[in-house]
């Protein structure tokens, strides 16, 4: 075997033949799992494979239907609702667990507030929060309300919350899905530091490069079954992907297809400003995939929301095929064919308490019956179509969206937006939390749409995605479009140079 740090180290937490069913639908089948002291163990698998479920069982948030859990070799029934924290088991949830009305430092210390003589020691807690955030390289204000934070910042708070606990075992369910490369680096540095002190980690991610970089061992699940556990060093990205998907993957990105120069301009944005975004102008031609890159908080989302009528604009024009689109009117934007897919699926994308059908057709109900009447048949057919087209995998067709796996939620959201059959599709973070196999499907899907003459804007923080997919790339920095790159210019270094403010050119 391979001479790893953790090799031969004692097993701290283990699952033995663990199975789990929800309402009679089985999602885990007799899974075995071992976590050694001081190791970073990757948990991989397709969307809906059962990773989050396993993680929740190992941290007490769900009870297994059968099988047992061993802590330090002793069978144990983990206490529910995060009380396993007392045993040193902490989890960073895939979906955040933060109360919107609290501040960052209040959230960090929620449930274990520090008091002096019964009075909250707010000064101490704020200072401590600052310290942990600084360690993670986060600039989030410790007094900011959670509701005012971006998704990435919320994730950093989640991470800070877990790390600030005295934990022996930390579960991280896709912690980096919404983080920038830089933030990820900070996180990894902390993780390694804690590993040195003997903390064990379970790391769930769809980012193969991060898994290769950080972890000691990998366990792969497929359709709720254990497939393989092996040291990371004897695997490579290809083989992991193959284990996950169960087949060989062809190239991730489809061949680029540049639209001809004299193709009609579909979407035209001139001089658009909002509170933060200044004077943004760009065009998208028919059949084109335009990428938007930039650092987190550079204003891409705000710009796109303004284009889609979700935000008011202080100046500027948006037109589709030459027809002006009124400001601040989502429905009008939808009617002329602009559709925007949000990156915040939990709060802005899906009705978590509704089923798949209600979510899927919400934006396109007028297609399912005349005069406001809804035809259940037509809706059911739409769901069937979408499940095939986007490979939405749920074992129980009646599950509410909030209980679907993260990746399947993302696919449902994409399907929902596509249901409106838009001409201009703005996709904010298209593959957040999606497994490689499906990623490939989505890329091919986007490319096919472009070939059909749709115009597509991809906003993404994943550089390879932008480079692999887009024929032109706009880079934003501090609310301005600082450059639009084409052809050969599109490379990681060049984009970084623009986003960091080292280079600049006016819109082409």
């Amino acid at each position, binding site marked *: 075997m391979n001479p790893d740090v953790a090799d031969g180290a004692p097993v701290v937490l283990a699952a033995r033949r663990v199975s789990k069913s929800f309402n009679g639908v089985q999602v885990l089948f007799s899974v075995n799992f071992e976590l050694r002291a001081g190791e970073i163990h990757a948990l991989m698998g397709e969307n809906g494979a059962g990773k989050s479920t396993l993680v929740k069982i190992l941290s007490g948030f769900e009870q297994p239907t059968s099988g047992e859990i061993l802590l330090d070799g002793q069978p144990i029934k983990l206490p529910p609702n995060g009380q396993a924290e007392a045993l040193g088991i902490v989890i960073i949830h895939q979906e955040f667990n933060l109360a919107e009305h609290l501040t960052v430092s209040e959230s960090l210390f929620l449930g274990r507030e520090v008091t002096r003589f019964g009075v909250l020691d707010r000064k101490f807690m704020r200072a401590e929060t600052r310290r942990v955030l600084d360690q993670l390289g986060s600039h989030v204000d410790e007094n900011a309300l959670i509701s005012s934070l971006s998704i990435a910042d919320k994730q950093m708070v989640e991470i800070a919350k877990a790390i600030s606990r005295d934990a022996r075992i930390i579960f991280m369910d896709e912690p980096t899905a919404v983080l920038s490369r830089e933030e990820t680096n900070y996180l990894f540095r902390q993780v390694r530091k804690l590993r040195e002190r003997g903390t064990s980690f379970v790391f769930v991610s769809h980012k193969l490069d991060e898994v290769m970089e950080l972890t000691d061992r990998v366990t792969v699940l497929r359709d709720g079954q254990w497939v393989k556990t092996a040291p990371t060093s004897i695997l490579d990205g290809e083989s992991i992907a193959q284990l996950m998907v169960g087949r060989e993957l062809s190239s991730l990105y489809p061949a680029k297809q540049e639209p001809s120069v004299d193709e009609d301009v579909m979407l035209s944005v001139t001089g658009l400003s909002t509170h933060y975004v200044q004077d943004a102008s760009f065009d998208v031609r028919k059949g084109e995939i335009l990428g938007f890159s930039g650092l987190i908080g550079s204003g891409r989302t705000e710009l796109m929301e303004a284009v889609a009528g979700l935000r008011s604009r202080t100046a500027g024009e948006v037109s589709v095929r030459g027809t002006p689109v009124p400001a601040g009117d989502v429905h009008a934007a939808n009617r002329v064919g602009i559709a925007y897919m949000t990156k915040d699926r939990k709060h802005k994308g899906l009705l978590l308490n*509704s089923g798949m059908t209600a979510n899927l057709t919400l*934006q396109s109900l007028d297609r399912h019956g005349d005069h406001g009447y809804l035809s259940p048949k037509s809706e059911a057919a739409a769901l069937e179509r979408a499940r095939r087209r986007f490979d939405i995998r749920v074992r*129980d067709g009646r599950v509410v969206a909030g209980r679907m796996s993260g990746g399947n939620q993302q696919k449902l959201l994409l399907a929902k937006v596509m249901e409106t059959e838009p001409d201009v599709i703005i996709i904010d973070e298209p593959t957040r939390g999606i497994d490689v196999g499906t990623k490939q499907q989505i890329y091919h899907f986007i490319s096919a749409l472009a070939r059909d003459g749709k115009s597509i804007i991809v906003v993404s923080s994943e550089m390879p995605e932008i480079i692999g997919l887009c024929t032109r790339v706009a880079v934003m920095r501090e609310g301005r479009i600082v450059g639009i790159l084409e052809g050969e210019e599109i490379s990681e270094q060049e984009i970084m140079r623009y986003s960091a403010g080292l280079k600049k050119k006016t819109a082409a």
Partner: protein
Amino acid sequence: MTASEDAAETSARGRTWRDIDLRAVAPFAALALLLIVGALVNPNFIGLNNLANVATRSAFIAIIAVGATFVISSGDLDLSVGSMVAFVASIMILFMNSGAIADPSLMLAAAVALTIIIGAGCGLANGLITTVGKIEPFIATLGTMGIYRGLTTWLSQGGAITLREPELQALYRPAYFGSILGVPVPIVVILAVTIVAAFVLYRTRYGRHVVAVGSNSDVARYSGIPVNRVRTIAFVIQGVCVAIAVLLYVPRLGSTSATTGILWELQAITAVVVGGTALKGGAGRVWGTICGAFILELVGNIMLLSNFISEYLIGAIQGAIIIIAMLVQRSLVRKS
């Protein structure tokens, strides 16, 4: 009723079968329990006559509560419905007393139309104050509650407004006291209103929008749903339901006063919640609401028919019964 409730809601909400079953059935189980209790209390209780009486007089609250189901599903609340009843009824009677139209049937038709318009207008006012004014619905409608009630007091100069024209009265009376194929008119109206409401809530685009807005208004907005319009229309629907209730109310006593409809808002909301709709919004159960209204009326009826409860304690026992009915529901749902 139960069956169609299930069908409608399952396809609308798509919960697991077992789950939905019990939740939709729970209010009806509580109702059944009450019927048994009632039968034990007084043999006359279970008579067709008495049950028809109870169902008939539950009509006002039931119909108003159907409207409230929309408002509550969309995440709002309307406290003004009780005073709206008084206000709309006053205007209707004053109009009929005005003698503006000589022919009684024509007059009645015009009065009916006017009532619906006024009801819708009051609802619209509530909706606009809440959505455009961005005021918590609780406060906005508490304000209009005061306004409608105050205007009624002023119209009636503190007294009663009574329908004077005997001919009109005779013509209109069957709207409450008459029956169609042996079924009292108010029951027919309840059924008609509920069927229409269930259709709108479960089978139309608008109904879906209501639930989406109540469930998460941000998601609704990002899905291109005109949130404020959906909410405002829910208030208008509530207003129209109030107007329909008034159309049944006026022929009953032929008069209204400043005290008409006091506390009906609480009763309507209670009916909605007892029927299984959560006050948080995001889900509506129209048939459950009707069942809730019937439960409320039944509790009062049983109290009165029983011989062993001091009249001083009736309020206390009513309160206790409502709590017990909810506990029965909960325990049913939890067993699933």
